[in-house]
């Protein structure tokens, strides 16, 4: 008995009967009941109003457009005593990767003990290695081993494929090769993508594949090949594989979108596979006849220079790629790769 109903109804006689009430019985209400009911109604009305106000116009299309500072930079320290660009030539793809990285001062310059390293090869197409549409699996495996030897805690190998990913990862040989070498091979799932501000000139917000961007070190491992729309694809265009969403629309301004992506993403190291080079019918080839052998691997800390050198292997000039000029203007790197400290290594060993 609260004090509100003191004296109003004697003896605790139940006045309101809901269940088992006899039909026709007079229903009376007391003050206590009235207050409880009104309190509940008020709480419900107040609560819903508060909720409505709290979420009113919430996130109404307001997005962080981002500025240029949204850069994911994994760049290593530049050391004037060490080369910035290393070109290894020889027969054995595996030896070439090692030699090229050694030419820059060795893997320990780039990977420290305990690092989580993300390696981003090109695994875009359901093609076998000999068709040269994807990065050479042996090279990826060798890179994984080198990172682990340098003390990396975890090496992740992944890409956002264009064909069926299961098939791309298998046919490219990268799933088996990288996994055997000790890498975590990750196939992209929707949940790995989050919208991020790229801060680009044209690319403002885009779903980004976080598996590749949220690591301590990021190694870009593209393959040099022909591309009909933008002449050639190599290191910078490989960052298309970072994006989800309707990335096929990027073709409408392919050079600017490549430049924007390369501005956003600055890898620790770029290893350009120019062993087998797809020189026509790019970027997916399909026949061994579209492939020629160049037997080179380029390692560099300057992704622009990698492309600038790579396109010469296709018999074209860096000036033909507008995105290189844009990158140069933005000081991402230089298209005049000859100006870098360059080391050329001839690897004598024949494949076993």
């Amino acid at each position, binding site marked *: 008995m609260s004090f509100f109903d003191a004296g109003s109804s004697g003896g605790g006689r139940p006045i309101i009967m809901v269940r088992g009430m006899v039909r026709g019985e007079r229903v009376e209400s007391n003050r206590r009941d009235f207050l409880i009911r009104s309190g509940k109604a008020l709480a419900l009305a107040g609560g819903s109003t508060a909720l409505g106000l709290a979420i009113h116009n919430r996130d109404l299309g307001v997005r962080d457009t981002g500025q240029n500072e949204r850069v994911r930079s994994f760049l290593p320290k530049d050391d004037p005593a060490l080369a910035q660009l290393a070109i290894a030539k020889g027969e054995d793809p595996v030896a070439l990767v090692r030699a090229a990285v050694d030419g820059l001062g060795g893997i320990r310059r780039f990977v420290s003990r305990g690092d989580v390293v993300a390696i981003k090869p090109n695994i875009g197409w359901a093609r076998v290695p000999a068709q040269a549409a994807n990065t050479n699996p042996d090279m990826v495996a060798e890179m994984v081993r080198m990172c682990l030897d340098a003390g990396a805690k975890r090496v992740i190998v992944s890409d956002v494929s264009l064909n*069926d990913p*299961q098939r791309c990862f298998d046919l490219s040989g990268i799933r088996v090769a990288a996994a055997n070498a000790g890498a975590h091979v990750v196939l992209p799932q929707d949940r790995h993508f989050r919208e991020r501000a790229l801060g680009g000139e044209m690319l403002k917000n885009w779903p980004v594949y976080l598996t590749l961007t949220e690591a301590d070190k990021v190694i870009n491992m593209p393959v040099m090949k022909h591309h009909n729309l933008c002449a050639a694809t190599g290191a910078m265009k490989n960052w298309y594989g970072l994006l989800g969403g309707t990335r096929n*629309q990027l073709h*409408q301004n392919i050079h600017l979108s490549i430049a924007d992506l390369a501005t956003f993403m600055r890898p620790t190291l770029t290893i350009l596979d120019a062993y087998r080079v797809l020189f026509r019918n790019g970027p997916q080839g399909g026949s061994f*006849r579209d492939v020629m*052998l160049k037997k080179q691997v380029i390692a560099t800390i300057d992704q622009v220079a990698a492309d600038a050198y790579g396109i010469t292997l296709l018999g074209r000039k860096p000036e033909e790629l507008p995105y290189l000029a*844009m990158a140069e203007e933005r000081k991402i790197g230089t298209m005049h790769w000859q100006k870098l400290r360059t080391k050329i290594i001839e690897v004598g060993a024949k494949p076993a």
Partner: protein
Amino acid sequence: MKKLWARFLSMWPAWRARPGVDCPEARKKIKLAPRGTSKKGRVLLWCRRISQAAFLFLFMFLLVRTEYRGNFADRAQETSRMTAVVGAAIEVSRVFSLAGASLAGAPLPAAFVALGDGQYKLDYLDALLPEIRLDLPTSIFLEADPLVAVSTMIATRSLYGSLAWALVLLGLTIFLGRFFCGWICPLGTLNHIFSYIRPSRVGARRIQANLTKPYQWLKYYILIAMLVMALFTTLQVGLLDPICFLTRSMSMAVLPAANYAVRGTLDALDATDVAWLKEAANVGYAMFDGNVLAARQGFFHWGWVIGAIFIGIMLLNRYITRFWCRALCPLGAFLGIFSRFSIFGLRKDHAKCTDCNLCLVNCQAADSPQGGVKWQGSECHLCFNCEAVCPDDVLHFEFFPNLKRSVAPAPDLGKRAALFSGFVGLATYPMSRASDMVSQNYDHRVIRPPGSVEEKEFLERCIKCCECMKVCPNNALHPALFEAGLEGVWSPILISRIGYCEHECVLCGSVCPTGAIRNISVLEKVGRGEYAGKPIKLGTAFYDLGRCLPWSMDTPCIVCEEICPTSPKAIWAIEEWITKGGVPYRLQKPKVDPQLCIGCGACEKVCPVKDKPAVYVTAIGESRSDDRQLLLDKNAASNDRRWEGPQLVAPGKSKLPEGAQPANAPNLSAPPPAPNARLPNVAADPKFGQAPRPDRAQIQAANASERSAAASEAKGARIDATDKQASLLPTAVGGFVPREPPRAFAGKNLWEYMNGSAPGFTKYGFRRMVVCEYTRPGNDKQSITVEIFDMGSPRGAFGRFAEERDPSYAPVALGVDGFSSGGLVALWAQRFFVKATGTEDNAEMNALLLSFARAVAAKIGVAGKPLPVFARFPHEGRKPRTDRYWPRELGDVPGMSGGFSIDFKTGGRDLTLMIADTSSESGAKKALARVANAYPRAKVETDGADEVLSVGGEEDAILFVRRKGELAGVKGRLPHADALAWVRRLFLRKGGAESPAKKRAPARVKVRRDDDGDDASPSGGGDASPYGG
């Protein structure tokens, strides 16, 4: 309606319940999950339940695994084979690169095929391409389905592949009866389970419902109709065959829905910021990945209809136990017919029966187990419920029971009704074929999977099980509703907008149990090896030119060309140089080569015209059809002569001159361009590591012409005279008037005006620009473009101005500062950076540009003052016009914050002095730490109140000094002590370790106008920042 139904029922002899129906004892004892009264009964029940669960699990397991997932272990062998392929291909290419040179001594790789006459053709090891197949017999349930086997056998007069398994089941049924329904059938088990969950009828009503009733004969009529249809070559058993029905319902509706729900829940958990929820999501992913979760979410056309039918069938169990099995299932009817010779059956001890009706309560199939009536053997599922619950030892399942006494003969269908149902089946065939969809008006959307047989035979074979759709890795195959005509309901069609046919995938053919899709090899599908030049075509791609970006909107795209999987690509492009906004660029307009196109639909899938695609595939030209062809000769080789397969010409008999390349062959022997081989001495070359400076004038000239042209057609918002910023534009100067109203661009769409160069403005704080092009009436050749950039602040305006300025340009007394260079006059005033660009570089034009610039400067009014910070730099040795503002990375030093710099030349040395734009001590500290981090050999020392960071030692110095919140530095080649002295002159605060007094500039200097006109005023404009702007 009710009356009609009653009348229908009255046509058949009634099976009446025995008197015990209303026995109150039975009502009490009714239990839905019988426990069994005897040990034998209990064992039998549990055996049955375990069998049912096991087969349901097996069915679901195989169904979930009906998709390709890469497997690490199983592919080891594949890898070694692949390595062999790779190695051989390298070998081939190597030999190929020696074309024309000697092959002597080298064994010819197996990839070469001798053509005779000394010529060899490269076979390129096509036969070694790996094929991806499933590792489990995923369609085993369908293959063991006797109805599927018999009906396709009737329709096609042949028995396909593994359907022979069905004969085993059929044989067992002949001897044992319908054990399949009670013990194996996964749909039966599901019906069983759903009958158990909250049935609406209990007690006496349930007993009544479980009496044998005439509606149960419906399934026999369905069976008759379907078999007659099959005889007339239209196969419809798949609509109601339980295995087909369940496979279809599960893979098209239930599993995708479960996948969507589970993944959605887990993704929502994963997207939270709560650690333990994320962990829970990870546990969930680990648990469900590979069983509930498909490799990719499927979205199926008409999936909801299939799902709704399934749910409806399941709900019917609430009213009548296992209604599907009793009334609809043609397989049940089929097995029932064969079970009439069974040697296994129910013996009833009628004398002992007390009419408790417990057997009826628990009966699944309504087969009259109770005493006093004959058992309907062909209805019974052999679930053994009745024997288990019988309290009086009446019912016994045993071999060779006295069949004559206890088993009713075959169901009395009635000749007329049976004939009628046969007639229904008979009529369906001509009626559906006389309809238009199959032959006359073939629907262009009916694109069948690769390897499908010709449409008429396809309809004889397809059982609508949807296995092919389940296994398709790209979600390309979908159940048709009426697209393929009445006969083709739930048959597979390819909807490219949702998914395309993966080039080297043949999984649909490998799971098809009836051969409607042949089990083809990859080589046959893509046309390599023995099938060279004859790939399987599903249809042909067409362009909708009105919607295509390059064709109708002059916008570069050709995503379709990129994804086209054939080699050479079936999509090729006409190249055109067009001018848009005055800027010439290459436009590629795609076209289809109908001979090369395989109709895979990849182009349609990726076309960025999202709703109705600009390129789409229709079924015409599919290789399985002889009459629906686009080209006169469907087997003709492509007339594409972009390149021929290279042919190796053996040495000696070479038809080509020595050393020549085969026609169109890649020039493999040509050496790559020689890269720069030097690894130069770093210390000796001071410029090393610096980016080469492009020719400024050249770049500016190029940009200027591009921009002035772009200004006339760029997409920027047109603005009117009331615009404040646009009012700064002159109306007319020297006879030049605006060609069009001015345009404005903000930071968001600046790239539309200067594709690729916008960051060069935004980094200085760009806000908005207006641009206007001026011409003389009647003279289009000469034009002047005036751009006014609002850079947000004087410092931003100065920064951009300084970046575009070169020390060699002639200074102009305009605004705060200005310069003139060939065809360009620029100035900055207040927060505006102004450029006037002409189409020519001559005296007249330059004078005009100056007057334009002057006009703008006059409209801006008070120009403001130079940035006060530059007054802090010493005066002696200043190089004129080298003052810069850096929004970040002062002096290109990585990690440094923004700031101001001036170049000096003193004592034969080049220096750059820098003052960082730091406002707080912690900011300065952080900037210094970042620089230290960027240079591995940076040294950081403390010298009194100063923190000194030096890089590069005595001769190649970068040196920064921090004094409290101030940070200044020098770059150049000078001894450490000198560098320190130089830097210390730049501070406002007095430090502990003083530099020589005579070299020290006062913290504030008097205004002194330099010859070069780029000096600073000390008082500044009263800005909040000590450095101005």
